[in-house]
C-alpha cells in the first residue's frame, strides 16, 4: 500500500471567472491561529481591484438582464454545489479559525441556508419592494426596484465563509455584480467559494474575489468611478470614515459597518439597500 502525498492547492484571486495570481506577484502567509502555515494567499493590488471592477461592470448587463427566476436558480445552485463540497469548507474553516469541526460545520450549514434563503427572494423581492401608485390622474404608474450596478464589498473579517456569503449573496439577488475583499486573516474559504461560484452557472465576472489587505484595497474601490455602491459591513476595523468620504465623490450608496450577528443575519433590507427604485408613468387615456 502506497501512501499518497497530498497536492496542496494554490490559492489565487477569482476575477472575471478566472483564477489569476495578483498582478503584483505578491502573496502573504495564511496561518492557523497558532501560527502554523496553511497557504500563501494572493495579496491583491490596486491594479487587481481595478481589473475586478472592469470584470464586474462587464457582467452587469447579463446578470441584471437575466430573469429573476434564472437568478434564483443560479443562487440555489450555489447552495447545492457548496453542500457537495462542504467537507473542504469545514476543514478550511477549522484550520483558519482554529475552531472545532462542529463549529465549522455549523458555519457551513448557515452559509448554505443563506444562499437558499436569498435564492428564494430573487423572484419575490420586487413584489415586496415595488408597488403600483394610485396617482391623481389617468396614469399607469408603477415603482420597481432595479440593481444599483457594481457593488464593492468589504466582507466581515471574523469568519472565513459566513460573513462573505452574508454580504455577497444579497447583493446578487437583484442583479448587481460584486467585487468583494475577503477576510484578510481567513481568505482561503473565499477562494474556495470562488471555485463553487465558477461551477454554479454564475456568469463570469458576477462575483470577483480579492484577497489581501482590505486597508490597502478598499480605498481604491471606494473612490472608483465605476463602482455604484460600497458595502462596508466588514470595514469596522478600517479607517472606514475615510472610505465613506471617498465614496461621496461619486455619490455611491454606502452601507456602514455592522458587527456581530446583525452583520450576518438574513435581511431583506440588504437586498433593497443595493437597489434603485424606478418609477414609470404612462397615460391611460389621454392619447
Amino acid at each position, binding site marked *: 500500500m502506497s501512501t499518497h502525498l497530498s497536492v496542496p492547492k494554490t490559492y489565487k484571486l477569482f476575477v472575471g471567472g478566472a483564477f489569476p495570481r495578483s498582478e503584483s506577484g505578491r502573496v502573504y502567509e495564511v496561518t492557523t491561529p497558532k501560527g502554523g502555515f496553511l497557504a500563501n494567499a494572493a495579496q491583491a493590488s490596486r491594479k487587481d481591484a481595478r481589473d475586478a471592477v472592469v470584470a464586474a461592470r462587464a457582467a452587469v448587463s447579463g446578470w441584471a438582464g437575466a430573469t429573476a427566476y434564472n437568478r434564483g436558480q443560479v443562487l440555489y445552485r450555489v447552495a447545492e454545489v457548496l453542500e457537495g463540497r462542504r467537507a473542504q469548507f469545514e476543514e478550511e474553516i477549522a484550520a483558519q479559525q482554529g475552531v472545532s469541526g462542529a463549529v465549522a460545520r455549523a458555519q457551513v450549514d448557515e452559509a448554505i441556508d443563506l444562499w437558499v434563503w436569498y435564492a428564494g427572494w430573487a423572484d419575490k423581492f420586487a413584489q415586496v419592494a415595488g*408597488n403600483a401608485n394610485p396617482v391623481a390622474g389617468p396614469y399607469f404608474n408603477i415603482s420597481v426596484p432595479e440593481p444599483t450596478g457594481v457593488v464593492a464589498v468589504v466582507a466581515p473579517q471574523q469568519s472565513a465563509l459566513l460573513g462573505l456569503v452574508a454580504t455577497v449573496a444579497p447583493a446578487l439577488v437583484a442583479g448587481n455584480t460584486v467585487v468583494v475583499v475577503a477576510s484578510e486573516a481567513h481568505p482561503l474559504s473565499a477562494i474556495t467559494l470562488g471555485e463553487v461560484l465558477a461551477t454554479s452557472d454564475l456568469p463570469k465576472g458576477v462575483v470577483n474575489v480579492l484577497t489581501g489587505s482590505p486597508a490597502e484595497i478598499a480605498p481604491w474601490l471606494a473612490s472608483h468611478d465605476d463602482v455604484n455602491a460600497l458595502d462596508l459591513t466588514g470595514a469596522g476595523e478600517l479607517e472606514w470614515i475615510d472610505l465613506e468620504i471617498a465614496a*461621496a465623490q461619486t*455619490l455611491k450608496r454606502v452601507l*456602514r459597518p455592522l458587527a456581530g450577528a446583525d452583520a450576518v443575519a438574513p435581511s431583506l433590507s440588504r437586498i433593497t439597500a443595493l437597489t434603485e*427604485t*424606478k*418609477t*414609470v408613468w404612462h397615460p391611460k387615456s389621454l392619447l
Partner: protein
Amino acid sequence: MSFLDYAPAPESTALLNLRPEYGLFIDGEFTDGHGESFATISPATEKPIARVASADASDIDRAVAAARKAYEKRWSTLSGRDRGKYLFRIARLVQERARELAVAESLDNGKPIKESRDVDVPLVAAWFFYYAGWADKLDHAGLGANPRALGVAGQVIPWNFPLLMLAWKIAPALAAGNTVVLKPAETTPLTALLFAEIVQQAGLPAGVVNIVTGAGETGRALVNHTDVNKVAFTGSTAVGREIARAVAGTGKRLTLELGGKAANIVFDDAPIDQAIEGIVNGIFFNQGHVCCAGSRLLVQESIHDEVVDRLKARLSTLRVGDPLDKNTDVGAINSAEQLERIRTLSEIGEAEGAERWSPACEFPENGFWFAPTIFTNVATSHRIAREEIFGPVLSVLTFRTPAEAIAKANNTPYGLSAGIWSEKGSRILAVADKLRAGVVWANTFNRFDPASPFGGYKESGFGREGGRHGLAAYLEGGVR
C-alpha cells in the same frame, strides 16, 4: 395690439398681507436671527419684497434644540393618529390659503402664476394630505412592525419649487414622527415663512417645525449640527457631494435629490402633437429650473427636421413675461446669478458649434429674463449636452436605433429622469427597462404625485420622495 394679442391679466397681489420683515421660526415663534438680514426680491422686477433674518450657528443651535425638545417631550409621545390629524389640518390650511401662497410663490420665485396656482400649491396640499394618512399606518410601510422615527431632521431645499420642496421634506418627516429644522433657499424664503404661519394656525406643538432662513453657511451649520439625526437635501450635485462628505462617519441618515440631465427620447412612431407639447413642458416648465427637466431631446433622425420645425412654431407662441400674468407661459429666471450661468453655458454652446435659436421675445425693462432656446446640431461631447443648465435651454441630439438612443440617454453621470415618446407599448417598456433613471415618463413628462416615488440613480442622488418609499427616508429600518 392686434386682435390675436392678449390683454394683460395680472393676478392681484392685494390678498397678500406680507410683513416688511420676517424672523426665524423657532419653537413656534418668530424670533430675530443673529446673522445679517437680507432682502428677498422679485426676480421679475428686482424690487425687494421683504427683509428676512439670517440664522447663524447659535440660531441653528436654538432651532435644533427646539426640535429635539419637541421630538422628545411631545411629538414622539403623540399617537400616529394625532400626528396625522395635524398634517390633515395643514393640508386644509394650505388649500384655504392656496391663492395667497401661489401669488407669493410667483412673486418671490418668478414662476408663472398658472404654474404656482395649478401645479405647485395643489401638490403641496396633496403631499400633506397623502402623508397625513400614513402617520397611523406606519406598520404597513414595509419596514417591519412599529418602525421608529429617526429624531431631528435637518432639511435644506432649493429655490425652484420652494413650497413644494418644503412639503416633500416636511410631510413625510412629520408623518414618520420626526421633528424638523428646514432651511429654504436664500432667494425664495417667502412661502416657507408663510408656511410657518400655517403651522401656527394648525396649532402644531412648538418646535415640531422650525424654519431657518439664510444662505449656504446657514445650511452648512444645520447639516453639520451634531444633534441632527437625519439630513435631507435637494439641490446641486456639487453641494450634495459636500454634504455626503460632511455626513460621513457621523451615523446621520442621508437622502439626496440632486441634479439631472434627462434625455427625452422621441421615436419616429411617436404621437407627434403630444410629443411636441411634452417636449415643451419637459424643458420650459418653470423656466427649465427643474432638476428632472427634459433638457436633452433625443429625436430619431428621420423625424428630426419635422420635430424641430414644429417646436420652433410652438415656442413662438409661448408668452414670456410677468409671472403674475395669468397668460404667462415662461416667467422670470430666479436670480441674476442663475441668469448668468444660463447665459454662459449658452454662449459656450454656440462657441462649441451648436446652432442656437430663440423666438423673438419682448422682455420687461427690469428683472431677469432668458428667451426659450433650442440648440440643434448638438454633439454628446458638448457642454450643453452634458452639464445641467437649469434654464429654458433645450439641446437637440439625434439617434438612429433604439440601442443608440438608450446608450446616449444613459451617457451621463446623472440618472434622475427620462422621457420616451412612442406609440409602441412593447418598445416603451423595453426602453424604460434599460434607462438608468429614477423616473421614466412615457408619452408624458414632468408629472408629479405624492403617491409616486421620485428620486435619482447614480450622481442624481439617493433615496426616494413620495409614496410608501418616501417614508423609508425617515424611519429606522428604512434603507438609508
